[in-house]
């Protein structure tokens, strides 16, 4: 099944063209982290400190993805 991806700031530089990705039924955020790290090993350190939001709500590693989920990868905030 496909999920939509939104990348921001430093994470976006690692995945400039990636808009969606195929994951398996039952895959969680943890699986997605691993898939992304495998896709681009250079992103590992920034992904480790990034938060994930599904449909604009921060979720933990165990959150299970669904078809069409909009997943945002949020590196550490640096506003202000």
């Amino acid at each position, binding site marked *: 099944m496909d999920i939509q991806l*939104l990348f*921001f*700031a*430093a994470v976006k*530089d690692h995945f400039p063209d990636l808009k969606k990705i195929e994951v398996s039924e039952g895959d969680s955020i943890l699986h997605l982290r691993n898939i992304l790290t495998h896709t681009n090993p250079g992103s590992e350190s920034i992904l480790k*400190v990034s938060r994930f*939001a599904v449909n*604009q709500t921060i979720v933990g590693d165990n959150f299970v993805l669904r078809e069409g989920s909009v997943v*945002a990868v*949020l*590196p*550490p*905030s*640096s*506003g*202000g």
Partner: protein
Amino acid sequence: MSVLETYSHISSSPIFVSSQMPDIPEIGGFVVFSGIVRNLNEGKKVTHLEYEAYAPMANEMISSILADARKKWDLLHANCIHRIGKLEISEIAVIVETGSMHRAEAYESNRYIIDRVKHEVPIWKKEFYSDGSSQWSKGCVHESH
């Protein structure tokens, strides 16, 4: 850019400190904090910044932080606006206003709001340096900055 104007806490237009107080006669203390773009960071000369936000989520999170502040303190006014896009040196990046009957609540809640906005809200800055290089800020590693 017009879409962004629908977010009350995220602005792509310049932010200014108003000399007008909110029209709330019970207010006895009013605190304004503004975060300003400065020309130096970690020893490197900064020429300008670019702020990026996950705008709908950032707007909701700022609303929620303001609501939390209103629960913790007896506030008559609380607002926060964060700028996005390209900002020059000395422009206002973020503004937090708090108003209450007495100054203590206004000061404390203002600090609470800006600290949470900086740490939690999905907004990021890219620094551009005088040598032509640029990099995304690492985030809030210095607690009090």
